[in-house]
């Protein structure tokens, strides 16, 4: 709930430079590629963005808290493995298509559990979340390999992978789930007490403690939310693949963090919002999609993405320079 008074579109853009950037690349690719400005391509972009996007929603909460979660890629892979494997458990053999239900539920629970473990360790040990989740990133990936025995699982049931191709009216169902989650997390963050406390804990932890907010459990809840969203992302990804591979989600944490930071969330906590994060993930999604359509060689894609990340960070610093009044520090 920031200032409600006099927000012009221009000032809004200055505060959310990422949406200006999204607009820019959107126009650029529309002009440069005949396939870009197409209704079906927009569907694709949304579906492609949903994977990173779902996790980025949770990462926004965790980062506003002043924490970070590097283990999301591994959590995603673990959840995907559960979602696919549990369907084939003998006990659900007679359930028909309903066997998907326990599988997906269990996968989401596993995600919440991984988040809870991270959150609990951060809470009780006081070790920096970066370190806790760096460890978990290795460890949970280890769990994935223990569970899968290094190979891929696949769903016998095509109903599972058909789900990803479903549309409600003109909207692909995966995109709808992503947009619905975006709306929900946005409302949670901006309208609920938990969401407001998220800012308080990240903005001034001392103040939050003084005001009686139970900081530890609060942070744990946010880790559980990101665990859930990473798992959901893993489940949706596995429906697109009809399978789960043990290496799924490698490096996703880096792209997620990139998207969230592009969206204006501060690594130090206390600042950020879902609208910015949505801009961040769309920026990356549109760039990737557009460069695919324009056939930019893979080698150059790395350079372009890296440079853009740094450039946006630089511009953000220019626009939102903190007022230390020209003090040279």
């Amino acid at each position, binding site marked *: 709930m920031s200032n409600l008074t006099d927000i012009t579109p221009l000032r809004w853009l200055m505060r959310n430079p990422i949406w200006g950037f999204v607009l820019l690349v959107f126009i650029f690719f529309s002009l440069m590629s005949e396939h870009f400005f197409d209704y079906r*391509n927009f569907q694709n972009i949304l579906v*492609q963005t949903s994977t990173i996007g779902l996790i980025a929603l949770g990462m926004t909460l965790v980062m506003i808290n002043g924490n970070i979660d590097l283990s999301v890629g591994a959590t995603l892979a673990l959840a995907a493995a559960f979602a696919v494997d549990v369907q084939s458990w003998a006990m659900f053999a007679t359930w028909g298509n309903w066997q998907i239900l326990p599988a997906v539920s269990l996968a989401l629970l596993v995600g919440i559990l991984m988040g809870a473990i991270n959150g609990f360790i951060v809470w009780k040990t006081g070790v920096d979340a970066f370190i806790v989740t760096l460890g978990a990133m290795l460890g949970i990936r280890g769990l994935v390999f223990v569970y899968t025995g290094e190979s*891929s699982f696949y769903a016998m049931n095509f109903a599972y992978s058909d789900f990803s191709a479903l549309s409600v009216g003109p909207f692909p169902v995966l995109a709808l789930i992503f947009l619905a989650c975006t709306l929900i997390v946005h409302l949670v963050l901006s309208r609920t007490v938990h969401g407001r406390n998220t800012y308080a804990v990240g903005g001034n932890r001392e103040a939050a403690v003084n005001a009686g907010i139970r900081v530890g459990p609060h942070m744990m809840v946010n880790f559980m939310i990101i665990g859930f969203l990473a798992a959901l992302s893993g489940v949706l990804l596995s429906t697109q693949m009809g399978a789960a*591979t*043990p*290496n*799924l989600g490698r490096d996703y944490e880096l792209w997620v963090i990139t998207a969230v930071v592009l969206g204006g969330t501060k690594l130090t906590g206390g600042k950020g919002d879902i609208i910015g994060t949505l801009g961040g993930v769309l920026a990356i999604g549109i760039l990737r999609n557009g460069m695919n359509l324009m056939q930019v060689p893979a080698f150059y894609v790395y350079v372009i993405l890296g440079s853009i990340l740094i450039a946006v960070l630089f511009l953000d610093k220019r626009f939102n320079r903190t007022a230390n009044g020209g003090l040279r520090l």
Partner: protein
Amino acid sequence: MTNKMRILLASCGTLALASAASADTVRIGITQNNVGIDSYQTTYERAFIAAADANPDVEVIVLDAGGDVARQISQMQDLIQQNVDAIIIWPTDGQAVVPAVRNAHRAEIPVIVTNSNIAEAGMEFIAAFSGPNNIQQGIYSAEMMCDALEGEGQIVQITGMPGYTTAIERQQGFDERLAEMCPGVTQLDIQPGDWNRERAQRTMETFLTRFDQIDGVYSGDDNMGVGALNAAIAANRAEGMVFIGATNFAVGYDAMGRGEYWGSVYQSPVDDAKAALQTALDVLAGEDVPKLNYFDTPKITQDNMEEFDRPVF
């Protein structure tokens, strides 16, 4: 004024010509596994582009998934979106791309799988597979190992990146054939080398400390095999040790020439790429193409290496 008009007319003419030409050309999209991770894939990509350039009727859209299944699925979507005439896919994971291939099939775009095959469940949705038989390569390596050791000995295995199809299939072929063909050869341990020479070298160093007697080493490709060889030479234990790899790299070929490396499986990325493109063109021409088009990947050993050119990668 007239000059301008002429240019305008001329350019209209070219445009018309171009669109006329594009009616006859076919547009083929390819999404590769992970270009740049090793020379094989890079050489493949170059050969593929070169082959396409050589054919005026072919226009290709070349994409790379960077080893990420999700990105490969996005690229499939993007290619379907562009309504290409055919899609060639080098699966990052044989299992996980099946639904994406199925979607292409539904969009009536023929899919040709290259290099490593997709899972059984997806076979009905593809037009054809073209590439080496990775399981067969594992079998070849096992046979060479058996021959070299004359049925007796202790060996270790260094596999590719865990979880990737090629690595899994080669290991599978090797393990099964070895057990069946020479039960006298025991595998002491299997550890990954991640397709990385330095990591393979480290893995081998640990094997050397751990086992006093190692008679043979099977590596998932020559790049790792040479890493293992380096480790053995450094430990002064390479003498009499049998090194067998797959995907013959130039370094492996040279080591073979020096007599340090026993054998490998010869696989040309150029053949691989050409075969994939040709299969795609055959499919588009409506020819009756068999489902599985394995190109030959023969055994290469110190004895017959003169028959082969030194690999370019």
